[in-house]
């Protein structure tokens, strides 16, 4: 009875989760036996058949675990509930089980069968969670069961379960490393998985289990690059880091030529050397010479796969996740050509506005980067200015970066900035600033005197710490040119009376001893004072007093002989054995006795040898031999599991290993229901869209929603910058031929539709009359030399393309200049941006030598000027060609009356209107030529107009039918104003440019 009442109490008090436990902390006076008793309550609750009681008990147990209290004696009671129906109880039992299974292995085995059953559950959530818990139980006996479960899950139909399998791999590996070979097989299989969900997790497993098996990546390299943008953030980090390493083994150093040039220039060390380390031994040099010779013979061409990686990672610099940004930054730093590395600076500077921990890590990396590539961060100098609210560790790092960035041009600004820092109340930071000034002074000789004077001024600062630090830095600076600054040495000698910081005193004494010849009168006096206070000094000061005495004895023994003897005698009985040793050693060396050996002759040489000035250099120098962004880099020590970043290979390994065979791959999970399958496809979709090297992070969503507006506008967006991009996308698409099975199939279907020859429709003829006839410009598609006799020209015929009104008709003219016939001319392998479509021309069976044939094909450019890339095939050869439309060909003329025109124009104001002033070409000042030139530039029709000062044209874009209205208003002396109204701003802008060109030239 008493037990039940106690338990009622518990229940009453525990309406909020876990609360009562906190009241009874053992530290707050709970008695052990009562604690024990409460566990009895818990057991009772767990044994009851009410879920709510079980849940309550489990919650209290979890609260105990959370506080680090031992709850292992409840194991038998808890493990019984592993098969509980209530999902929260079950989850909490899992938490408990994973925590204590290691300690209670035998009992833990009781639960295994439950999980084995779970692995076969039709619900993917249950399968996944069963595998998750099973693999988390660290009991060696179940290794075979785990292995089996992982293998099965790796070919599960649900990508979520496969992801869980990938997670389970490192768990099993850490439990039993002997399973490695089998696990690698599973990894290999999962690496081939095409879903974004799995990609990140399996690469993580790869990194933990077999990072050395770089060969497993070859076949998946391009896929990983393309999936990257759709992988979740954490997976992105792991994949990018792994690909950095991969790229270092497979591609050539993009900076090879430049680094050689630099090294050949002179031994200029401050400039960044080659990406290799700075070992300057003969062998190395020879090797480099060889490489140089090789580079001369073969100019560097970047592997398209290398380019693919750089291109696909770049957008991720905009990620909100600092780790992703850092990962991309280090990838660019280690892999990109020097000219392209600059893009990361802005993103890194952005991270400086994040939490202070993020700043700390980023600044460490910036510090390393700024040594090698100073120019990159110079524009952002101000972002590294220190705020009084920054934590000290951030201040010190920013100071480091500022110092690294200092050069002749910006040093005055930086020094001014430093001076405000010296006034800070944060003394550690002030000390660091003084050090930084010292480093600037050594690196930039122009400001050395200014800095030195400034530092000397600081010697009269009220704060002793400032003075001390200045002394230390001045000492280092003076060492570079002591003869010039004897007055400063004198000044410092005076300071010994006041300054108490041991390090500073020691520095002054060393300086005086070292340059005693410059201050012959003061030095003995300083020694006298020091001898007086010898016994009260710190150890480092004592050592320097002995040194000073020795040096003076050697140069000026007349005045200092007795003093030296006195100091040495004091030191002989010092408590510190270092000092006693030093005294004995020095006495033997400098005081000539009959026993003293040959060394004493050289005493002067030994003590007063010219000492090299210390090099004040950044602690971040050469830290970049660690992969940036890594823990090892941060600590400047190799952390466990760190994978060395390999040097670039001298010759690129075979790039064809990354080619993938095209196969109608039948998914292994064919047995799964159709509904599941559809889901599967959905997940894979982003991958396909992405393989175009084009879509943004979520473009996949677009293609899914398939609403006309959505797809149009997105394709319109791809227009700007098409010049550079189209080339790139071609490259990308070439490398990804194999991954286009789906599209290929579609194309085949289309081909079947297109058996009928193309005919002009009546409507086309009618339209033809509206559009003023203008000469059609033809473009070259294939030159006769590259085409081995076959030359192809094309023009935009401006006829409606009858099979599909949304397509632009392209008329092609084939000429066979070769001596033999060409057969089976047709198109293959069309590479298009998303949304674009192509209707091929019917195959030309035979083109005899010397003959010419024409054909018409239709292309839906989606109102964008993206190129359509495809292969032109003959019976023997294939040629890569591309058609890129001028913006004026993306429209078809429409007939509008003047009123309609005005009405439409009124609706396309504001952002949709672009106006440009221009001066007409001399030959183009009459209406007729203006009309002719505009209609040549764009497929528009003229709109009748009352005024003779204005010419108006109208058209609609071919795909979306958006109105395009053009007005050219002429004024005196050839001045004119061009107005384009178009809903599609990009089209409008480009059209303005084209018409402007047509009218002014």
């Amino acid at each position, binding site marked *: 009875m008493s037990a039940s009442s106690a338990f009622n109490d518990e229940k009453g008090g525990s309406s909020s989760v876990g609360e009562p436990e906190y009241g009874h902390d053992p530290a707050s006076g709970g008695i052990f036996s009562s604690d024990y008793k409460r566990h009895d309550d818990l057991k009772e609750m767990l044994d009851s058949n009410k879920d709510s009681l079980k849940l309550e008990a489990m919650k209290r147990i979890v609260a105990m675990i*959370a506080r680090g209290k031992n709850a292992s004696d409840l194991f038998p009671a808890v493990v019984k509930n592993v098969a509980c129906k209530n*999902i929260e109880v079950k989850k909490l039992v*899992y938490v408990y089980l994973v925590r204590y299974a290691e300690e209670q292995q035998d009992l833990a085995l009781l639960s295994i069968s439950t999980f084995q059953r779970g692995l076969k559950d039709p619900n993917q959530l249950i399968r996944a969670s069963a595998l998750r818990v099973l693999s988390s139980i*660290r009991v060696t006996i179940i290794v075979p069961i785990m292995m089996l479960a992982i293998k099965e899950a790796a070919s599960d139909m649900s990508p979520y379960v496969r992801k869980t399998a990938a997670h389970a791999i490192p768990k099993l590996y850490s439990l039993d490393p002997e399973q490695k070979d089998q696990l690698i097989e599973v990894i290999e299989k999962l690496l081939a998985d095409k879903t974004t969900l799995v990609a990140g997790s399996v690469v993580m497993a790869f990194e933990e289990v077999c990072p050395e098996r770089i060969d497993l990546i070859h076949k998946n390299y391009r896929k990983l690059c393309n999936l990257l943008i759709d992988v979740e953030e954490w997976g992105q980090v792991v994949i990018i880091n792994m690909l950095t390493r991969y790229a270092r083994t497979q591609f050539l150093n993009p900076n090879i030529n430049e680094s050689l040039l630099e090294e050949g220039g002179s031994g200029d060390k401050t400039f960044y050397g080659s990406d290799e380390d700075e070992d300057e031994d003969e062998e190395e040099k020879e090797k480099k010479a060889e490489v140089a010779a090789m580079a001369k013979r073969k100019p560097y061409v970047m592997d398209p796969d290398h380019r693919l990686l750089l291109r696909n990672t770049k957008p991720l610099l905009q990620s909100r996740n600092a780790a992703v940004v850092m990962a991309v930054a280090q990838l660019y730093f280690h892999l990109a050509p020097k000219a392209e590395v600059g893009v990361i600076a802005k993103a890194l500077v952005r991270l400086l506005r994040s*939490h202070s921990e993020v700043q700390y890590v980023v600044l460490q990396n910036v510090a390393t980067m700024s040594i090698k590539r100073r120019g990159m961060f110079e524009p952002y100098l101000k972002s590294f200015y220190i705020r009084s*609210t920054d934590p000290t560790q951030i201040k010190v790092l920013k100071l480091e970066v500022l110092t690294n960035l200092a050069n002749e041009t910006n040093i005055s600004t930086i*020094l001014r900035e430093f001076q405000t820092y010296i006034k800070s109340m944060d003394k550690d930071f002030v000390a660091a600033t003084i050090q930084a000034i010292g480093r600037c002074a050594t690196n930039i000789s122009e400001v050395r005197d200014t800095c030195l004077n400034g530092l000397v001024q600081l010697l009269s600062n009220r704060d002793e710490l400032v003075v001390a630090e200045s002394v230390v830095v001045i000492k280092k600076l003076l060492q570079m040119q002591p003869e010039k600054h004897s007055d400063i040495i004198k000044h410092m000698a005076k300071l010994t009376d006041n300054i108490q910081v041991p390090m500073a005193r020691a520095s002054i004494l060393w300086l005086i001893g070292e340059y005693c010849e410059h201050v012959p009168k003061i030095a003995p006096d300083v020694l006298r004072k020091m001898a007086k206070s010898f016994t009260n000094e710190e150890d480092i000061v004592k050592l320097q007093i002995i040194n000073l005495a020795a040096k003076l004895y050697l140069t000026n023994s007349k005045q200092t002989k007795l003093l030296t003897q006195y100091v040495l005698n004091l030191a002989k009985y010092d408590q510190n054995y270092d000092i006693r040793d030093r005294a004995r050693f020095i006495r033997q060396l400098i005081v000539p006795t009959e026993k003293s050996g040959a060394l004493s002759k050289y005493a002067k040489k030994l003590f007063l040898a010219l000492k090299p000035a210390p090099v004040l250099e950044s602690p971040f120098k050469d830290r970049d031999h660690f992969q940036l962004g890594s823990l090892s880099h941060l600590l400047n020590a190799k952390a466990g599991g760190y994978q060395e970043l390999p040097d670039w290979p001298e010759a690129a390994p075979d790039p064809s290993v990354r080619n993938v065979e095209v196969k109608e791959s039948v998914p292994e999970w064919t047995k799964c229901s159709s509904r599941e399958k559809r889901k599967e496809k959905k997940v894979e979709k982003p991958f396909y869209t992405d393989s175009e090297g084009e879509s943004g992070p979520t473009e996949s969503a677009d293609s899914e*929603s398939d*609403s006309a507006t959505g797809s149009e506008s997105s394709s319109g967006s791809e227009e700007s910058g098409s010049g550079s991009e189209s080339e790139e996308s071609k490259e990308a698409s070439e490398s990804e031929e194999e991954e286009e099975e789906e599209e290929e199939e579609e194309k085949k279907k289309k081909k079947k539709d297109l058996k009928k020859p193309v005919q002009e429709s009546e409507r086309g003829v009618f339209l033809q009359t509206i559009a003023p006839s203008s000469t059609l410009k033809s473009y070259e598609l294939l030159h006769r030399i590259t085409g081995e006799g076959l030359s192809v020209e094309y023009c935009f015929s401006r006829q409606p393309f009858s099979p599909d009104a949304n397509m632009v008709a392209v008329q092609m003219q084939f000429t066979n200049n070769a001596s033999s016939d060409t057969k089976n001319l047709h198109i293959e392998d069309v590479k298009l941006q998303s949304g674009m479509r192509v209707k091929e021309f019917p195959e030309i069976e035979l083109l005899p030598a010397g003959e010419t044939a024409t054909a018409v094909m239709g292309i839906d450019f989606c109102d964008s000027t993206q190129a359509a890339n495809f292969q032109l095939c003959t019976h023997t050869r294939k040629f890569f060609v591309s058609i890129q439309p001028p913006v004026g060909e993306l429209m078809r003329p429409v007939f509008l009356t003047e009123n309609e025109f005005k009405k439409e124009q009124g609706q396309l104001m504001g952002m949709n209107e672009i106006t440009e002033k221009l001066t007409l070409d001399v030959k183009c000042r009459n209406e007729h030529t203006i009309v002719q030139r505009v209609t040549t530039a764009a497929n528009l029709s003229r709109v009748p107009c009352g005024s003779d000062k204005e010419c108006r044209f109208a058209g609609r874009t071919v795909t979306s039918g958006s109105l395009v209205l053009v007005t050219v208003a002429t004024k005196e002396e050839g001045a004119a104003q061009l107005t384009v109204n178009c809903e599609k701003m990009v089209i409008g802008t480009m059209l303005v440019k084209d018409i402007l060109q047509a009218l002014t030239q």
Partner: protein
Amino acid sequence: MIHSLFLINASGDIFLEKHWKSVVSRSVCDYFFEAQERATEPENVPPVIPTPHHYLISVLRHHIYFVAVIQSEVPPLFVIEFLHRVVDTFQDYFGVCTEAAIKDNVVVVYELLEEMLDNGFPLATESNILKELIKPPTILRTMVNTITGSTNVGEQLPTGQLSVVPWRRTGVKYTNNEAYFDVVEEIDAIIDKSGSTITAEIQGVIDACVKLTGMPDLTLSFMNPRLLDDVSFHPCVRFKRWEAERILSFIPPDGNFRLLSYHVSSQNLVAIPVYVKHNITFREGSSQGRFDLTLGPKQTMGKAVESVLVSSQLPRGVLNANLNPSQGTYTFDPVTKLLTWDVGKINPQKLPSLKGTMSLQAGASKPDENPTINIQFKIQQMAISGLKVNRLDMYGEKYKPFKGIKYMTKAGKFQAGLPDKWTLEYIKTELLHKEIRIN
């Protein structure tokens, strides 16, 4: 990856531990305490601490240290970013992230941590997914749960996790469809004693609260997108579209999220909304100092400057301050020497001022440190950079949502009254100057 997590409060108690692999004894935290002792300020504890067998990576938020234990190489930012994500999630779930809140919800916390990491590798960190797995505790739900014994744990696999839009769950339904966007800008500035700007930067974020049914596809365009110099996006934003058209196009997550953070390009002159006139003097030999500070609005486009708070770290020699504010209240802490003045709203007709005397330690020499003045303020209905949203459109759904956009400007790190910059050239003493010439 991440081995264990310890939560340590300000007084150094470990109040929560969670292990994702085998148990790491909490004595590993001793290394952390050691580092903590060495650091003078709480924020000076190094984020990464190596110990003989482990590495400790910690973040400090809301006076709680989140200490992650790791055993092998992992990018430190990876861990730091994750820990911050954990804190954000707690804040999202419990409203605040305090020791009390975590202790009260220890089971939910444990369930969350369990879902967020698997074997030390992040599993589900999207708040939309987590909220489907584990429902946030509300008073109502807690009560219902205690009575019926039902749970906080979702019974289904989050649909988002399998879709192409992992940040949004499917089947969202609202009776009132609304989308609110807050454009919040922070201005960081350093202004010297003469009132001229040394550096000024504007950073902004667009926080959104979107409660829309179904799968809406939103586009947001700006009147002046060129202002945005550097941006980082929520993963939902289509990057290419931004690149090409400077339009934000996205399928939003459900609920609150940060759509965008940006930096305004430094070419644009930054309007400084307030000015400070101050005069702090100490006379040699006197134990009194004068303090005189006036605030005024400047370039605020007619909007009121609100919630103004001025704080200044006075020199150590100051014993007490006897000041007279024209409005608001001030406090001076004689121990930390921190002067704070809660001004409230600035009335342009009657400028707020704080005048009076400071008493100095007897016999102390004239303090040389020129105190810096930190200012905080808020201006509603204005984005200081001039950024303006042009329009917000929705595609993919039929209904008409209610749309709202709010602007606000805040002071970030806003410091005024830094000493005039002096150059080394000026400070050469004459004597030294001569001597160097001779040499």
